[in-house]
């Protein structure tokens, strides 16, 4: 299990919350950790950093054991040589921006430190703020100081707790590119907590879903998108249109399943055997057709009325948020044209080819 | 009835305690004595302390009060004080009326600390200094002296054996509490100016205070003073 030079972790902690975690991340890879607020993501990161001691299990990096409770091994954060961006930054309030970075550079010869610190400050675009104290910085500036401090250490593992949560779109893009460039340079495992699934998919080689104190599923983006283990996993991946439906009929030989959606019965291809009365998860695509009138709907399409909550156009596509009329189920759709003008503020009709509706069984 | 506050020099502490007990038994009246050095108490009365009788260790301080018009009636000499040289049971200083043992010990470098009351505001300290000067001991002993804030503290320092000995009031030494801890020798009267101890009623004195002031001059009181090692003034 520990033959390669990546990070392997299989642990159990009890305090401050109980958390069971299994994960691995190759050197040079980015592992994004997604999960609902309060799931235990920050707690997991602190445990990797050595700030929380597991009650059982092993953490190893590059074949070296960082934690092995059975063998009474538990390296201190100092011994692990990590780069860590805490969720709340943990800046040294008494030090200027540059000194906040210099303090982590003990591993470099004295003469190189200043250069290195300046290089990283430049990278996060904070050179003008070099001599300001943290309490004179904006939220995003503070976050970037924490980021630069962690990166500048050239660590053996990089732990980032929502490192881009406080910066604007433009700055974030810049930092994304910097991180991606860097990743091939420093070749260490990078574990990044984020609550932005697009960011996770863009940056990460692997995604880990944490929910309610457990690591639920780890895999590549496409693995996870293909077979999410639960609704929670699907939601964390940005699959918004997922909701439970009841099987009304099933034909094993034809691999067809019928269920009721918004009052009408829908038939969809479904390879798994289902029992009538079962609850399964229905997954609607984001692409959809929008109609002003019901008679425009094609015959083989499932259709329903959508109560519009909000919509906006971006990059020639219209993003739509609405409820399936008469239900509390919210859908998020994306169409490649403008919304029909009459529908701009009330109800519209949506149709989806039945072939594009997928059913999945929730695992747990 | 009221219970007057009475300022008394530290050296009369035990004698006054006995007299006050007797007084209370006879009259069912009480008094509240406070002890300190005569100078300190005078200072307090001058600044308004509500004492109704001032019992001093000499006559100088009561006279000061008279001059400041803080008194009613004249001062009365109630006893004549005597000095004693004392040591704790663990000290091996030799005690005698002419301080020869002390002189010996000083030459042999056996004295590290020696206690007297502070001459600045305690008459017993001043007289102890007199005696030491008279015996040519002041120079050798001066930098070994520790000063009690009043004569009772000086006695307590001497008893603690942290000082090898001290010169204090004979009246303190006569107390039973002292005998548990120390030994003493009376000092020859000729080595110092006499301690003519006076008392005076202050301007705020009330009936009980006046009554007690009289009682202090009664035979019962005079007997007790003698028990505590005081000489008595000639009665007019």
């Amino acid at each position, binding site marked *: 299990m520990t033959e390669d030079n990546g990070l392997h972790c299989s642990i159990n902690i009890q305090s401050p919350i109980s958390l069971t975690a299994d994960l691995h991340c190759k050197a040079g890879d980015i592992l994004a950790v997604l999960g609902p607020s309060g799931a235990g993501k920050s707690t997991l990161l602190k445990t990797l950093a050595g700030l929380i001691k597991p009650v059982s299990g092993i953490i190893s990096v590059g074949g070296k054991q960082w934690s092995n409770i059975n063998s009474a091994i538990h390296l201190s954060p100092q011994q692990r040589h990590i780069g860590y961006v805490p969720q709340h930054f943990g800046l040294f*309030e008494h030090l200027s921006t540059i000194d906040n970075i210099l303090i982590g550079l003990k591993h470099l010869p004295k003469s190189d430190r200043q250069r290195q610190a300046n290089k990283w400050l430049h990278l996060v675009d904070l050179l003008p703020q070099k001599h300001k104290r943290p309490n004179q910085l904006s939220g995003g500036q503070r976050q970037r100081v924490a980021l630069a401090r962690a990166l500048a250490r050239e660590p053996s593992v990089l732990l980032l707790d929502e490192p881009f949560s406080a910066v604007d779109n433009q700055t974030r893009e810049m930092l994304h590119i910097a991180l991606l460039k860097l990743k091939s340079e420093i070749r260490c495992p990078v574990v990044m907590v984020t609550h932005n699934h697009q960011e996770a998919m863009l940056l990460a080689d692997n995604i880990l879903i944490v929910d309610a104190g457990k690591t639920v599923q780890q895999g590549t983006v496409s693995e996870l998108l293909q077979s999410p283990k639960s609704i929670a996993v699907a939601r964390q991946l940005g699959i918004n249109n997922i909701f439970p439906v009841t099987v009304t009929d099933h034909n094993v030989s034809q691999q067809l399943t019928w269920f009721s959606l918004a009052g009408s019965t829908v038939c969809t291809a479904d390879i798994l055997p289902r029992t009538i009365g079962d609850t399964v998860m229905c997954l609607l695509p984001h692409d959809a057709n929008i109609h002003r009138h019901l008679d425009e709907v094609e015959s083989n399409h499932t259709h329903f009325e959508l109560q519009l909550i909000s919509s906006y156009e971006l990059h020639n596509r219209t993003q739509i948020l609405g409820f399936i009329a008469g239900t509390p189920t919210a859908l998020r759709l994306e169409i490649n044209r403008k919304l029909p003008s009459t529908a701009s503020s009330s109800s519209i009709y949506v149709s989806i080819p039945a072939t594009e509706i997928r059913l999945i069984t929730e695992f747990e | 009835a009221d219970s007057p506050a009475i300022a008394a020099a530290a050296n009369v502490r035990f004698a006054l305690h006995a007299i006050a007990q007797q007084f209370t038994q006879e009259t069912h009246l009480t008094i509240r004595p406070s002890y300190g050095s005569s100078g300190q108490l005078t200072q307090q009365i001058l600044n308004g302390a509500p004492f109704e009788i001032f019992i001093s260790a000499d006559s100088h301080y009561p006279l000061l009060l008279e001059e400041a018009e803080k008194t009613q009636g004249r001062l009365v000499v109630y006893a004549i004080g005597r000095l004693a040289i004392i040591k704790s049971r663990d000290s091996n200083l030799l005690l005698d009326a002419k301080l020869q043992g002390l002189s010996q010990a000083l030459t042999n470098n056996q004295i590290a600390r020696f206690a007297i009351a502070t001459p600045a505001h305690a008459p017993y300290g001043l007289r102890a200094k007199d005696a030491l000067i008279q015996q040519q001991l002041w120079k050798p002993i001066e930098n070994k002296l*520790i000063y009690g804030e009043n004569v009772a503290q000086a006695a307590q320092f001497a008893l603690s054996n942290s000082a090898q000995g001290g010169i204090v009031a004979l009246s303190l030494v006569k107390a039973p509490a002292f005998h548990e801890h120390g030994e003493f020798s009376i000092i020859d009267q000729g080595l110092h100016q006499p301690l003519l101890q006076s008392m005076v009623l202050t301007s705020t004195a009330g009936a009980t205070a006046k009554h007690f002031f009289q009682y202090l001059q009664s035979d019962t009181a005079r007997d007790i003073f003698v028990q505590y090692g005081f000489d008595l003034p000639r009665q007019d």
Partner: protein
Amino acid sequence: MDWQALLLSIKLSLVTTILLIPLAIITARVLAFRNFAGKHWLEALLMTPLILPPTVIGYYLLVGLGQQSWLGQTLQSLTGQPLVFHFSGLVLASLLINIPFALQPIQRAFESIPEDVRDASACCGLTFWESLLKVELPLVWPGIVTAIVLCFSHVLGEFGVVLMIGGNIEGETKTLSIAIYDSVQAFDFQSAGRMSFVLLIFAVSTLAISSHFARKMGVQHDRR
């Protein structure tokens, strides 16, 4: 003006402060960051000198260190001189009395370092000593200044214990506080007034300097 007494007082204050503050920093850090059995009892014990009147402490020192006690005799045979009625006795007493004054502000300051910051310091690879010197001490600096001012001034003003165990030996145990008391009792209002005035000036300038330092080196803990 009793310059000797002033010098003695300042000497006593300096010696006490210099001995006590480093010990207090170490102890405060342990109490702030570690948990162990009996910690609350230890904390209460270390606080008692605050609540006990100096005369009580003086009494126990007198009884405990005096030559009639076993401890006092042992100490005397070791050091060749009695602790009571001697400068070293005053130092011991001052140390004892000032434990809470030195400990409390520093411990509070350590406790108010946010967990995030300590985590970050560990994760920046700072060793115990580096973290102490570069991160913790600068952050607790205002607490240390408070402790120094409290101790220094408290020793300067200590009266009860000194009176009880020290007598007032000139140049040895007669501190300024006692010298002033003595002058007043001896009707010497002139020197009492002069000494008081000197101390007033001294107090105001000490405060000005220390608050300047605290402001310059201290950091407003800001939760941004």
